[in-house]
């Protein structure tokens, strides 16, 4: 992989955190299309990562009739706080994530 490609590469953990931040910025509950838009994901990748997040217990599916939304769980909120701390720690030591 070239340096430029490396620079653009977003780790899976960063993608998951971006999705959690997208949900949090909508008040802890968000529609799939908004998560896609805010976390810059295709629909296929959104489906894959949403199921990963649910498996990890970080988000939960919220159904209202036909509409599906995703909400942050308590564990998801805690993970987001820890993720931000880690980003700050890594940044302090000059390691970009």
């Amino acid at each position: 992989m070239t340096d430029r490609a490396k620079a653009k590469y977003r780790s899976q953990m960063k993608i998951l955190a971006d999705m959690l931040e997208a949900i949090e910025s909508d008040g802890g509950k968000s529609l799939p299309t908004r998560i896609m838009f805010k976390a810059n994901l295709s629909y296929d990748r959104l489906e894959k990562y949403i199921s990963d997040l649910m498996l990890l217990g970080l988000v939960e599916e919220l159904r209202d009739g036909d509409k599906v939304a995703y909400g942050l769980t308590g564990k998801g909120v805690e993970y987001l706080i820890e993720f931000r701390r880690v980003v700050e720690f890594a940044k302090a030591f000059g390691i970009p994530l």
Partner: protein
Amino acid sequence: MAPTWALLDVWMEAASALVGLLVGIYALKAYRTVRERSLLYLNTSFLVIGSGMLTRVFVIVYLVTTQRLQLHFLLQAANLIYILSTLAGYLMLALAYAGRGWGRAMIAAQLISLLEMSRPFLLFHLVDAFLLIYVCSNLIGSYITDRSRTQLLVLAGFLLILSSHAMPLLAIIYPPILLLEAAIRLAGFLSLFVALATVALRR
């Protein structure tokens, strides 16, 4: 038995070692959260440096408290462990920043050129200083970009640790300056501790 104050530099080294271990443990926690390899290098480097320093502290305290100062080989072994662990730790730390091929090549080239020197005492401090200069140059680059308080604390910490390696070299000219080595290094580790506490306690 030696009075407690006579072991002041040993206690300062112990405090530095504990801070080093704390940073290493937090870096491991950070690695587990984001799986970034550079954080694993950071974790390993601080654990190795902290363990090396702590080993030397234990040996010195043991020799002094049991009054077995005739056991020079133990002290020599502890010093050797300290020197090797510090070298390995700083090399690992430099690798955390040398994400690109040229960076690794540059470190290797400089180390090989330094290894040709015949004075091991100078060599140890020069290699450590070189590795820390490399780390500091990366941190200065990051600080110029982001200008955060924690970055400044970490940069100040590494600059102080780098300065502590200059003391044994300056002691060739003025021996009493050697006493400052442990104090300056402790100030550096305390700066890292404040940065760590700032991040870890943030909600």
